[in-house]
């Protein structure tokens, strides 16, 4: 950009402060995460299990008021290998972000995969959470440092698709 062009741009920063409140469903979920437990919520109409839950089943538009305890094991539904550093992110590339489908859940969520050469990662691979030390647990999914592969046979992710009842 030339000096002349630069002059045409004026700094126009915006700063807004918020106090976020978690709402009912997320509060219930994060209170369990604080104890090292993952508890999804299921839809009373279609029985889909949501983790992390947002309080409603977007398929049916009803509250997910049934708590469903889940394990910290699952499989990789999809993943990406990140090669470029992102400003402010302390993780050194290359690293893997994966959509994690916990056993018994009908949706997946984003988390990190570590403990394996990035070239070996594949869809369907079985993984389990690696938790931070208990005294560091807070109301956050960051209590899980990352997921790491476990010695179990791969899963065909096509079988994970939600079955219309």
């Amino acid at each position: 950009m030339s000096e002349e062009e630069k002059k045409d741009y004026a700094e126009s920063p915006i700063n807004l402060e918020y106090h976020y409140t978690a709402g009912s469903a997320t509060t219930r979920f994060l209170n369990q995460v604080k104890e090292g437990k993952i508890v999804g919520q299921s839809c009373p109409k279609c029985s889909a299990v949501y983790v992390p839950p947002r309080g409603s089943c977007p398929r049916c538009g009803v509250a997910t008021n049934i708590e469903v305890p889940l394990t910290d094991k699952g499989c990789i539904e999809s993943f990406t290998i990140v090669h470029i550093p992102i400003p402010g992110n302390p993780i050194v590339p290359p690293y893997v972000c994966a959509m994690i489908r916990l056993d018994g859940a009908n949706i997946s969520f984003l988390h990190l995969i570590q403990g394996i050469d990035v070239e070996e990662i594949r869809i369907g691979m079985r993984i389990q959470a690696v938790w931070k030390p208990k005294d560091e647990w807070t109301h956050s999914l960051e209590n899980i440092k990352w997921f790491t592969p476990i010695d179990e046979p791969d899963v065909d992710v096509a079988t994970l698709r939600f079955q219309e009842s």
Partner: protein
Amino acid sequence: MSDQKDLLRAPFELAYNYKRSSGPLMSKFFDALAEQKILGTKSSTGKVYAPAAEFDPETHESLSDLVEVGPGGVIESFSWIEEPKHHHLIKNPFAFALIKLDGADTSMLHMVTECDEEDLKIGSRVTANWSATIENRITDIKFFTLEK
């Protein structure tokens, strides 16, 4: 509804470091602020919009005829803030005011300070005070004060 005291709360800040292009007309307005001049635009009907408007909201024509206005002007209306809040740029009592600059037919929103509420009236004359640092922003006019 869960108990308020069990509620999880977290502060967060949303910040965007936008850079805005002012375009051909408004960049002339902001350039002029660096020389402590305020520009308006004149429409074909002779009406002067200040700060410089890119189009006439009445005739809908695009405007390009720049004329210098101010730096003095008249308060058309104002609100007085005795106790400024966190987002206000002035931390002492001040007014947001619509100021019709000399030579202009419309008003400019800005701030008036260094006075008491009782000193301000619709019709009071004010004049521009300039910021020490020029950023090509409307805040290059620091605020207005009552004309001495």
